[in-house]
């Protein structure tokens, strides 16, 4: 039986998130128990294309570029539906960013970006493996190391 989730009026629906990554997406959007508006997280929704997927619906939130870039790292095939007055006004497919500024802390404790408040920079060096290099300490990381 399909799960019925209320529609949102204004906000964003993030679809085609790999199963299990929905919670991570909420974390990226900084949505926790203190978020006042409606939020729906559907996990393990059957999908023709990928078997199972997660979907996140958030009322009252439009995503900036930084957030979209971060989501692309955990959900490279995600689609964003921007909802206004209960209608989808825009559909976007996320794209793996070439570089990420100020999005993550560098996991290397010896990196200078952990010494002073410096805007971090990661460059996508191997997009197919989602591996990024810190623009300061030059260490390579897997996307999941940056997100956790």
């Amino acid at each position: 039986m399909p799960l019925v989730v209320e529609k949102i009026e204004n906000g964003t629906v993030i679809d085609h998130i790999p199963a299990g990554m929905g919670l991570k997406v909420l974390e990226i959007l900084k949505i926790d128990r203190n978020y006042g508006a409606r939020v729906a997280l559907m996990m393990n929704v059957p999908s023709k294309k990928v078997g199972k997927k997660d979907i996140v619906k958030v009322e009252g939130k439009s995503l900036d570029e930084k957030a979209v870039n971060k989501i692309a790292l955990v959900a490279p095939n995600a689609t964003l539906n921007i909802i206004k007055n209960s209608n989808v006004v825009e559909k976007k497919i996320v794209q793996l960013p070439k570089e990420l500024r100020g999005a993550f802390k560098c996991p290397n404790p010896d990196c200078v970006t952990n010494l002073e408040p410096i805007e971090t920079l990661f460059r996508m060096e191997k997009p197919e493996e989602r591996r990024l290099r810190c623009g300061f300490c030059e260490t390579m990381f897997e996307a999941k190391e940056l997100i956790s």
Partner: protein
Amino acid sequence: MELVKDLISIRDLEKKHIDLILKKSSEMEQALKEGKQLNSLKGEVVATLFFEPSTRTRLSFQTAAMRLGAKVLSFESIGASSIVKGETFSDTIRMVDGYANLIIVRHAKEGSARYAAQLAEHPVINGGDGGNQHPTQTLLDLYTIKRAKKKIGGLNVTLLGDLKHARTMRSLLYGLSMYGANTTLVAPKGLEMNREVISEARERFGAKVEEKSKMDLTDADVLYLCRVQKERFSDQYEAEKVQKEFRITEDSIKGVKDDLIIMHPLPKVDEVAPEVDKSKYAYYYEQAKMGIPVRMAIMDAMVV
């Protein structure tokens, strides 16, 4: 530099940049030999900011700057991380940027020189940023090899020791690969070179890199050593066994090529037997001397 503003990482350089430095280094060496006083940095102020002590490297930079006619501002921290207690790294860089025309930075944090270059209007040279990069060392290594062998491409170069922790080795592999040398990596188990670094050399330059667990120097043109530190092992018996195995003695250089050169970034402790120091293969003292002309060449290229 003609083409790059700062010298932070070997990764920022293309072969043409390195070619330029190597050529200039040879001119500088010649000028030094002839006792010429050079003035290309006359009226300029060079600052050497060593937040992490390394007297050897600092003196080399300072000598090179003075040989080009520059005045030198210098500071070397002994333990503390700032000149004035509580002053941040960024404030120190900004302040010195107001005094000097060229800044040399050494700091234990990785990426510190890159950050300094972001803050300063004047060119910045990385004098070593923790475990990450030490580009002037790599350039002097390449110059030393080129000088001794007249070429780099096609040479058989063996890198031996703790290849995991030595930043010298990582950058050198990168530089050697750029020139098409054949590199053999020999490291104790657990201290092998990072896979990432090897695959980068292969993918970016099509480098020939081989990994071996035992030392075999029969075909080597260059042997580059670095220290295997006891502290890297939890088992002291194992540490001593490995140190002994990786020590270069008279026996290890039996049957090597007649013109093999042995290099080492110095200071060394006991990784080379005294008999080897005295042999014709020992090239590390020669290599150390190259620090001056190569750093002169770099500074000369940076301040335009």
